[in-house]
């Protein structure tokens, strides 16, 4: 059991490249935290620092109250699952799982019991004598999990553990990992670039970019209240749409204005934008926040032309030209618009996002509200 605390941590490589700068993060005991970001954002580096595979160049890393900066990896009570699985190719499944226990000097009987427990849990019992090269991708993944969980570590680290699996297996393994976390009652730190994985697994998501944390929050917070355009763009499929425009005051109401488009912001949003009228902003409109069933009301209508219809099985994506921009929406598949048709969509104005057009910071959630 451990609470992990990174305090102004920096990582600079000998060649001068700075992977992390002044990163502060607290991971509660037994939490499931997902580090999310594009490749090169520093999420794997952060994980390696926690594991002890790389050294912290500045700042401090704590497990509970103990400073860990110089504790070598093999003395830390962490287990890690790698993207490549990193199974020992010349050892049997049994020996792969047992290795960590052997290295820590557990008695043989204890090792045997624990390995068999783990194998039963992961349905690997029939495979214990096999070598990694005789296993399928999913089976290897299970062995990698088994090798980590058999140690009952204080911290469980996972570096893109599912990205080498095919789509079906990935979803099944997601469920299994979530269950594992519930039964193991230990701290999980999970690195991925896959937003769906982050949203399904995490208690807390840490969105990173260029070695800097962009936002920390629950999946709902991250999705509903993104602090900037980077976070907003990184989650959502198809990605969030942006429209540049102005905030204007019309009588009592605050509106977003762009050309002939005028959206009236609901009271709750308008309150957060007090005194911002006249400012040029970037409107964020999530792909699913339009409706073509209901009759659009004034101030909530987006006029445009359907430029393409892309069925994706459960839904269809709508390419939509409005205000000189191409937007993408996700709509149900029961509605069939033809390409070239002019349509009025009803916008869910309660879910609009407003960003500063220069910095990309949210004008709604930038402050302490996020």
């Amino acid at each position, binding site marked *: 059991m451990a609470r992990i605390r990174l305090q102004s941590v920096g990582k600079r490589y000998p060649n001068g490249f700075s992977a992390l700068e002044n990163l502060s993060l607290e991971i509660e005991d037994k939490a499931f935290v997902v580090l999310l970001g594009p490749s090169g954002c520093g999420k794997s580096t952060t994980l*390696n620092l926690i*594991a*002890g*595979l790389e050294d912290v160049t500045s700042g401090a890393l704590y497990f509970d109250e103990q400073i860990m900066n110089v504790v*070598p*990896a*093999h*003395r*830390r009570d*962490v*287990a*890690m699952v*790698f993207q*490549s699985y*990193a*199974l*020992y*190719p*010349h*050892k049997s499944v049994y020996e792969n799982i047992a*290795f*960590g226990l052997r*290295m*820590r000097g557990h008695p043989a009987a204890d090792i045997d019991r624990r390995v068999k427990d783990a194998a039963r849990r992961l349905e690997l019992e029939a495979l214990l004598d096999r070598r990694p090269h005789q296993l399928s991708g999913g089976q290897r993944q299970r062995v990698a999990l088994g*090798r980590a969980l058999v*140690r009952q570590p204080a911290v469980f*680290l996972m570096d893109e553990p599912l990205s080498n699996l095919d789509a079906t297996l990935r979803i099944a393994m997601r469920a299994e990992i979530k269950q594992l976390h519930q039964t193991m009652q230990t701290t999980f730190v999970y690195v991925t670039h896959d937003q769906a994985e982050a949203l399904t697994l995490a208690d807390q998501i840490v969105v990173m970019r260029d070695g800097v944390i962009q936002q920390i929050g629950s999946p709902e917070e991250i999705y509903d209240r993104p602090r900037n355009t980077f976070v907003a763009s990184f989650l959502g499929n198809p990605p969030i749409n942006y429209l540049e425009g102005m905030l204007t005051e019309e009588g009592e109401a605050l509106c977003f204005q762009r050309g002939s488009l005028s959206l009236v912001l609901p009271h709750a949003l308008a309150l957060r934008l007090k005194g911002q009228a006249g400012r040029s902003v970037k409107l964020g409109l999530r792909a699913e926040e339009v409706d073509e069933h209901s009759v659009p009301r004034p101030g909530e209508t987006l006029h445009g032309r359907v430029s393409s219809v892309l069925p994706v099985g459960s839904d269809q994506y709508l390419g939509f030209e409005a205000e000189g921009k191409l937007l993408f929406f996700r709509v149900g598949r029961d509605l069939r618009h033809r390409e070239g048709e002019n349509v009025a969509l009803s916008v869910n104005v309660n879910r609009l996002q407003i960003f500063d057009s220069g910095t990309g910071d949210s004008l709604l959630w930038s402050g302490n509200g996020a």
Partner: protein
Amino acid sequence: MSALQGTAGLPPPRAFRAPVSRYDQTSALWLLAPMLLVLLVVAVFPVLYSFWTSLYDLKLTRPHRVPFVWFDNYLVIFQDPLFWSSVWRTASFSAVSVAAIMVIALLMALLLNEEFRGRRFLSAMLLVPWAIPYVANGLMWKWIYDSGYGALNGALFQLDFIDKYMVWLGDSHKTLPLIANAFVWKEVPLAAILLLVGLKSIPADLYSAARVDGANVWRRFAHITLPSLRPAFMLVAIYETMMAIRHFDLFFILTEGGPAEASHVLAWHVYVETFRKLSFGTGSALAYIIALVTFLLAFSLIRALGRRL
């Protein structure tokens, strides 16, 4: 798209293989013919001919009488005590050389696998002994070991390890180790490169996983590096054993089998029989015995190491 529908559940189609037409086969044979001919003349024929020779009592000292003696040559060889002592010398020379090559090459490869200043220069220097021909290597060591003006004597004398110049190669206890030393010096580079390739192919993640699993540096070496290098070790062991068993050049240049018979190894034995005694029959038979021994050794090494790959 519609052409793809309905294929789910069917076994995947077999890989398409075009039938080989008679025309293709004959033209392939014609294209290969020149090389086959060369191989026939320079490899197959001499091999068969030397086996044929080994069944005759062919001595150039009396070239007019060449009786067919069946396997008598082989019997003569096996009854010769010098043959058996040369087998023993070859075996000890090979065992010591190959063991030394493996250990030194491993250390070399481990060093060159690290990042440090001057690594490239050192790698290039490592290749020098490999690039030197055996004869040049032999002459160089002959000079180093020389009793009158050799570098070895000079260095040891100046460092006060010896109080007078030694006749290194004249000491029958030191001859074989000294020749082995020259052989190892020449062979280490290739072995080191083969092992280095093996080292480079070990995924870094394995070491990370082992570190997280609690393995310190020695255990990582024992549990990951050594087992992963097994194929490279096998290659080096087989190749160097074959080189050592058949090695001739250094014995010819440094000692000519001497002093007395201290460095009289199998390859030298063949030379003496064939070109000094001019007994081509027994010489050919001996060559066949060496080939057979080499083959058996390689085979058993592959069996012993290969099974655990």
